[in-house]
């Protein structure tokens, strides 16, 4: 019977330098997973590589051998022993469930990880390195992750200033494609928020007191540079303005915004003021169709998002426990299946052999219809005889008695191990 082993490094166990060394790019993933599958003792393998984690899910008959092989793989790529974690069997399955459900992520509830694991599984499948254990595990883990996302609030709320900015901008404008984002200043948080908006299709303009700096930042982030004197005009044409200058007074005052709104013909304007002291006159937020958020607002929303996630996390853990329990039962039922199948084959083959012998001698006068009826009767008898022991074995798959009963049955009826075909019945 194959055992599951997970070995890897992630954002909690290893610094970024180590994660960089073991990182695998998307183009090389197929080849690397094939090389893992080729290691001693590994029958199935799959490799998940993201910026926060690189981990291998593998299966083999000897869990010790598989673990040694996987640790060796990570050592070879430059991750020393102290950074590795390892999970086996049900603990490994539980880890897979948590990863897919984004409970093991740096930002709990982030949606990307599920897609990344799905991609890793697809690459492994396409490379022919997965088998029944990993395929079943991943199907269950994806199902569990879907339940967590739909039945808990794990995906609600925001977790960073950048994601709050994107969420808000989408709530105001919908699709951000073609909308203009203006960054005033050179604060890292402002540029991070602007980058997130640009990733969602917005166009970037950078305004700075130093035009040279604006040009440099615009080149770095794929935008257009403007001198500070262009700001009133940009307020008319931009949709989102992210302010983060070191100025000790307002860079954008209420009257400027009011004047810009006339030119905007009522189009909404979203102002994000990340600077301390503030760069935007707070009274600007009272204007119609102007939405002003300062750093306190954003941090409050971030913290609300985090606390919402904490509550949702407990609900998510409950869902995962249910799903893991279902997976465990399924695995144990599958362990009992070979014994039950072998037992049925043995009984049926023996009964049919005896019937054939009788049909060839004392019952050879019977018509084909009578013979057929006898075969049906033999099958029904075998089914009825084995119904009670089969049900009892299935009912005990979760218990040590179940495993013992399986072993006893194997020994008493000389059943073959695993999936090997049963021996010919005695003639």
């Amino acid at each position: 019977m194959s055992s599951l082993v997970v070995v890897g490094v992630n954002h909690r166990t290893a610094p970024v330098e180590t994660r960089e060394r073991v990182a695998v790019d998307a183009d090389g993933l197929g080849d690397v997973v094939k090389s893992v599958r080729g290691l001693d003792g590994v029958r199935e393998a799959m490799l998940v590589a993201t910026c926060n984690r690189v981990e291998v899910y593998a299966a083999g008959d000897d869990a010790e051998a598989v673990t040694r092989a996987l640790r060796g793989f990570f050592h070879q790529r430059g991750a020393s022993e102290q950074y590795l974690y390892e999970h086996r069997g049900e603990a490994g399955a539980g880890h897979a469930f948590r990863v897919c459900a984004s409970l093991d992520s740096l930002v709990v509830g982030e949606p990307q990880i599920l897609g990344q694991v799905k991609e890793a599984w697809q690459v492994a499948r396409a490379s022919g390195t997965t088998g029944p254990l990993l395929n079943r595990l991943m199907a269950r883990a994806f199902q569990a992750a879907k339940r967590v996302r739909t039945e808990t609030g794990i995906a609600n709320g925001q977790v960073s200033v950048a994601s709050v900015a994107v969420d808000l901008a989408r709530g105001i404008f919908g699709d951000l494609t073609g909308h203009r984002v203006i960054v005033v200043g050179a604060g890292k948080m402002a540029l991070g928020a602007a980058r997130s908006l640009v990733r969602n299709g917005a166009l970037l303009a950078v305004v700075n007191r130093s035009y040279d700096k604006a040009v440099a930042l615009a080149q770095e982030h794929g935008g257009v540079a403007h001198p500070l004197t262009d700001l009133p005009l940009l307020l008319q044409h931009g949709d989102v303005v992210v302010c983060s200058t070191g100025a000790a007074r307002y860079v954008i005052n209420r009257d400027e915004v009011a004047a810009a709104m006339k030119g905007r013909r009522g189009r909404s304007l979203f102002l994000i003021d990340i600077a301390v002291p503030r760069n935007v006159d707070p009274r600007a937020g009272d204007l119609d169709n102007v939405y002003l958020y300062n750093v306190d607002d954003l941090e409050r929303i971030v913290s609300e998002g985090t606390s919402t996630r904490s509550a949702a996390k407990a609900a998510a853990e409950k869902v995962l426990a249910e799903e893991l329990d279902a997976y465990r039962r399924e695995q144990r039922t599958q362990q009992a299946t070979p014994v039950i199948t072998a037992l049925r084959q043995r009984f049926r083959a023996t009964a049919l052999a005896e019937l054939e012998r009788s049909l060839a001698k004392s019952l050879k006068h019977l018509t084909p219809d009578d013979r057929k009826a006898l075969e049906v009767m033999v099958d029904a008898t075998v089914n009825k005889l084995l119904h009670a022991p089969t049900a009892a074995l299935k009912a005990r798959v979760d218990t040590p008695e179940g495993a013992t009963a399986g072993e006893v049955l194997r020994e008493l009826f000389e059943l073959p191990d695993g999936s090997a075909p049963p021996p010919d019945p005695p003639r």
Partner: protein
Amino acid sequence: MPPELLAATYYGATALYAAAGVALVAHLAGTTRRPSALAWGVRLLTAAAALHGLHEALRWGATLGPPSGLGAALSVLALLGVTGFLVVRRTQPRLDVTGAFVAPLTLLLLVASRVSAERPAGHLGGAVLALHVASVLTGTAAFTLAFVMALAYLLQERQVKKKRLGGVFQRLPPLDVLDAVGYRCVAVGLPALTLGNVTGLFVGARGAGAVVWQQYVGMGAWVLFAGVLVLRLAAGWRGRRAAIGTILGYASALVVLAGYYAGSPSP
């Protein structure tokens, strides 16, 4: 036409609208985390509209004519409004959640249609009068949708202004989408209401011989909606002000409709 069949389709549609309203409002308010609540709400609303349509068809078949009383007019108005929503949502699936406003409003109109007195059929003779009724109903149905978008806009705008980015903010469509759809509904409804007002002058002149008060209210509603459009085009009136103007215009349009059927002398 067996009256039991009319009653059955009416009560069936009412029950389905109520169920759709419960599902959609629960989804918008976040009292259910089941993602299927929205989909079920829209399905129930579609089924309710189908049954409602059957009810109207049966009634028209029985009376051999268009709505002939305030009750029937409200019922047709509700049907046109919900049908318009089901058509518009196909182009903007994010609008599905605004069904949380459409379903209760439709239910309200349908219930009101039952408690309002019917007039005997046949008094609405003449092409001008039929055109008048059809255009007023079509215009009011378009304004019903604009009204729904305006309500949703004001609710969403309040979330953004008050910095409440919880479930309601997440579930409602973006402000710009609500504003744009509301604008299109007004743009469609206004020509219809214009035609309704013009033909109303002829109907009024033929009936009472003078312009009746309902026609003044009708013109008032027309002015409000036209104002929303003109101010939007000329002065860039958008967002909150446009939404409030739309709501006032809709209320006036309902007064016209109610006044026409409830108080005006038979033409």
